[in-house]
């Protein structure tokens, strides 16, 4: 029996090549989208779970407990990890993790600027599972001046030589011995590093011994490990008030965050760069379901529309003894067969498209089906379910034909069944319109963020890192660069102007109430900073060589700071300071975006502080930029600084702030386009079918004098109504969902009515385009031919 069904199903598919193609194509695209998104979601959910102790590890973070606006920070001070381990017996292991500046690492003639050279404590390897290829994790950090490197780093420095025991030189200042080689850090790890050294070196060589016990130096991550299956609630309770005990005036509290929750749920300041968001996992899963749904609905629609062809067969089978249940099983068999065929092509399609998807999403997803039976099994199940779902309505509908109705005359579509088909098409198009609107809104917000006036100029400015010895030579480099006629300004600062995050705690100012708190962000800059970036001043002046006290006591604040401090005009001259520096405000700058657009503009202060400058900026003229850059590189090399001339353009950095959103926007756009394509595919099938059905009617109308255009118009009218209805349904849903998404941005584009009208126009245009060809062809058919075939 099964063989019989299979044979018929296959032959039927082959006979109706056009419609089978549309059906299978739609299902293929739907399944392929589903599969790729499944891979993406799996990857996101898998972050950090490869560590054996993952469930027992927590990150410690702190937050300001009094001001409601203060956001919690993932950065903690150096002494915290050891102190917690000592004071709380529940904590069986702890480690710090972090770094301080890029540094230059050399081995013989090879030198590289390493940005992913991190530091941690000996407990690190016991807590986190990184496979050691060479060396012993238990002893790798016995000597402070050691380093553990990844296989890629090993190949980079040592080629095929055995790295163990060899020495790397850092910043031409100190040496570290290679005590271990680990497998490359997997892509689904929140902790990223190429080289890892004990935290001790960070203190000794970079931030200084004086900061070893500095509880105010919040620049690193702290991780603690509890015993397996222990709850963290107890410990969280005990942490309350801990910081107050050390410093009675502190208003900061600590809290624990489960390590495996960080990637998708963490909303702290100063967090990892490769964070994801659980929101997007949901959105994309929904997207995958949408696309598959649209494809299935297509299938249902097309199959039932063409039911007249199968009617005879159904009636006959009932006559020779088939029961309804047997017929249902037969039709399910057909739909499942098509779904399985679609599965095979979908697997091939995914193989082809995965590299493209990877570049869109910034991941390294691999299909590797052979290594992953559960995944394959899951996809098979998805195809099965799709086949059963898509085939459900057609099976029930087709099997219900009564032989009497079917064998005596031609089967007319009953009112109920064509109404249901209408509902299906409208449903499909509603989804498509929803996705179109979503795409428009997301694209607008992305372009808004890209083009917004930040309030300061960032074009034609390159920046270089000045660390270690370079800092001492900064003055000399600046002077030499300024001699170049194409250079307009040279200045420096601690943080990038696109991401000023540091805060010195609550400052003091004239008229401040004793208990008052204010979170203010700060950056330390060189003279000429304001001029280089064209930051407008609303009051006062910028830092100047004419005033000898400027480097010590001058502060420039922004308008928001003035507002929060409730200072009255004139603001210039009023007292201001932090960290026991007593100074005054010399100027007020206009509010500008020195952070990503997710954040509101916050109070900001600039001060001069040469020891903490980390980057220098060179603003160059617009003509012949490459020539200018070459001559700057020459100047650099002539100075024999020992560091390579590595620079970046500032607007690059800015784009990177929104890399996540851009990526997500791209993925969303692509899938939305696919979904719309599938819906149109379905419409194409339906239109062809309607043309077939109405061939006789059209023939008659033409004979009676209707024009070709008129007939085509008449056919398109029906579809137009459906599409408009779909729009009306999609608009409220889209409005609700999109306005919620936009609320996540402190600065956003608007959700204008024109977006909705545009989507209506687009969807209508697409639909008409799809049916236009079919309608025209039907209208052009020779009436003599169509009227002759009288069934």
């Amino acid at each position, binding site marked *: 029996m099964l063989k019989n069904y299979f044979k018929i199903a296959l032959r039927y598919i082959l006979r109706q090549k056009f419609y089978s193609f549309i059906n299978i194509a739609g299902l293929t695209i739907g399944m392929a989208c589903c599969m790729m998104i499944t891979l993406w979601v799996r990857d996101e959910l898998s972050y950090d779970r490869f560590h054996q102790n993952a469930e027992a590890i927590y990150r410690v973070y702190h937050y300001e407990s009094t001001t409601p606006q203060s956001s919690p920070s993932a950065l903690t001070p150096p002494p915290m990890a050891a102190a917690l381990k000592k004071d709380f017996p529940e904590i069986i292991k702890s480690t710090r993790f972090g770094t301080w500046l890029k540094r230059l690492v050399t081995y013989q003639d090879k030198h590289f600027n390493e940005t992913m050279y991190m530091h941690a404590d000996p407990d690190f390897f016991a807590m986190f599972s990184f496979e050691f290829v060479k060396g012993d994790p238990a002893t790798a950090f016995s000597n402070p001046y050691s380093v553990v490197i990844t296989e890629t780093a090993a190949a980079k420095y040592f080629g095929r030589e055995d790295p163990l025991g060899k020495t790397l030189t850092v910043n031409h200042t100190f040496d570290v011995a290679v005590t271990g080689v680990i497998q490359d850090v997997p892509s689904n790890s929140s902790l990223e590093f190429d080289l890892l050294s004990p935290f001790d070196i960070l203190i000794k060589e970079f931030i200084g011994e004086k900061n070893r016990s500095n509880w105010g130096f919040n620049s690193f991550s702290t991780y603690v490990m509890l015993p397996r299956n222990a709850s963290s609630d107890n410990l969280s309770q005990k942490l309350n008030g801990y910081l107050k005990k050390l410093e009675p005036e502190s208003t900061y509290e600590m809290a624990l965050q489960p390590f495996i929750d960080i990637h998708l749920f963490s909303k702290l300041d100063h967090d990892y760069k490769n964070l994801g968001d659980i929101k997007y996992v949901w959105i994309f899963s929904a997207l995958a379901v949408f696309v598959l749904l649209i494809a299935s609905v297509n299938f249902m629609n097309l199959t039932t529309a063409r039911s007249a062809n199968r009617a005879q067969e159904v009636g006959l089978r*009932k006559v*020779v003894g088939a029961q309804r249940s047997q017929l249902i099983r037969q039709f399910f068999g057909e739909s499942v067969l098509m779904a399985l065929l679609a599965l095979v092509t979908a697997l091939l399609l995914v193989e082809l498209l995965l590299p493209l998807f990877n570049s869109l999403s910034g991941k390294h997803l691999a299909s590797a089906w052979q290594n992953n039976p559960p995944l394959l099994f899951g996809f098979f199940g998805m195809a099965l379910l799709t086949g059963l779902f898509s085939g459900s309505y057609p099976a029930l509908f087709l099997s219900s034909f*009564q032989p009497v109705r079917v064998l*005596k005359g031609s089967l007319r579509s009953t009112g109920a069944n064509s109404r249901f088909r209408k509902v299906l098409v409208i449903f499909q198009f509603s989804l498509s319109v929803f996705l179109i609107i979503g795409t428009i809104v997301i694209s607008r917000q992305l372009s808004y963020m890209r083009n917004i006036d930040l309030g300061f100029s960032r074009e034609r400015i390159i920046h270089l890192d000045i660390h270690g010895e370079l800092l001492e030579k900064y003055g000399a480099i600046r002077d030499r660069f300024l001699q170049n006629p194409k250079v307009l300004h040279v200045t420096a600062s601690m943080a990038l102007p696109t991401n000023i995050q540091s805060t010195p705690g609550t400052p003091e100012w004239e008229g401040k109430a004793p208990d008052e708190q204010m979170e203010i962000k700060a950056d330390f800059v060189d003279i000429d900073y304001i001029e280089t970036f064209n930051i407008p001043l609303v009051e006062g002046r910028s830092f100047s060589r004419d005033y000898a006290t400027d480097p010590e006591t001058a502060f420039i604040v922004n308008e928001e700071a003035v507002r929060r401090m409730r200072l009255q005009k004139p603001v210039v001259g009023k007292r201001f300071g932090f960290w026991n520096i007593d100074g005054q405000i010399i100027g007020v700058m206009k509010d500008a975006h020195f952070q990503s657009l997710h954040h509101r503009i916050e109070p900001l202060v600039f001060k001069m502080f040469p020891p903490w400058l980390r980057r220098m900026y060179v603003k160059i003229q617009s003509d012949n930029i490459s020539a200018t850059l070459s001559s700057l590189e020459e100047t650099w090399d002539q100075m024999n600084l020992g560091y390579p001339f590595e620079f970046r353009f500032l607007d690059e950095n800015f784009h990177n702030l929104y890399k996540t959103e851009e990526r997500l926007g791209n993925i969303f756009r692509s899938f939305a386009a696919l979904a719309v394509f599938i819906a149109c595919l379905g419409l194409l099938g339906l239109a062809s079918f309607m043309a077939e059905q109405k061939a006789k009617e059209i023939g008659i109308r033409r004979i009676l004098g209707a024009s070709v255009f008129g007939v085509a118009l008449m056919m398109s009218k029906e579809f137009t109504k459906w599409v408009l209805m779909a729009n009306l349904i999609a608009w409220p849903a889209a409005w609700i969902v999109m306005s919620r998404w936009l609320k996540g941005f402190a600065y956003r584009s608007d959700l204008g009515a024109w977006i909705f009208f545009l989507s209506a126009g687009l969807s209508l245009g697409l639909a008409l385009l799809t049916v236009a060809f079919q309608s025209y062809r039907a209208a052009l058919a020779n009436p003599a031919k169509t009227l002759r075939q009288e069934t």
Partner: protein
Amino acid sequence: MIKLIDITKYYSSGFVKTFVLRDINLDIKEGEFVTIMGPSGAGKSTLLYILGMLDNPSSGEYCFFDKKVHKLHEKQLTELHKNYIGFVFQSYHLIDDLTVYENLETPLLYKKVKGSERKGKVCEMLDRFHIVAKKDLFPNQLSGGQQQKTAVARALITEPKLILADEPTGNLNTKEGEEIMELFKELNEGGTTILQVTHSEKNASYSRRIINLLDGWIVDNK
């Protein structure tokens, strides 16, 4: 074998009832060869479908081998007409996607006949109707007469007690039509009850009893 008592069939749309059959009373014994004749729209096909249990009367009783058909539900009806009745249609109604062999096999599959037994029965039919050479061809590759022969073979393969034929020679030429009617005559002589609906006097002459329908009434019953 067949007893119809006051069978009536109408279609209602709103308040209007359109009567197709009125007060049909009929008695048919096993082994008879009956023709139902009448002009178009007289209700012949409807009567045939009711007899074949493919349609239900609006009122009246239908006894088939003393079973009250009007009281059975769908599953039981299917069982009945699967085992006792064979249908032959004017437009053959073969399944286009199956070969002749597979078309013949289909009723046996629904009766859950085992493989080897199925093969035997199909081969027997192919032989009897002289269509062995066509067994792997599709219906659209056969002539009208061959298709109808296949259809008759299919109707017979389950060894039914009753054959219902709706204009069996309507789409055939004279020679092919004769062939089919000779076949029916043979079957009837072998004991199968045959009921046919036809316009052709010639076809009617093969039977031994003619029932005339006009506007839903029986007007003649010899």
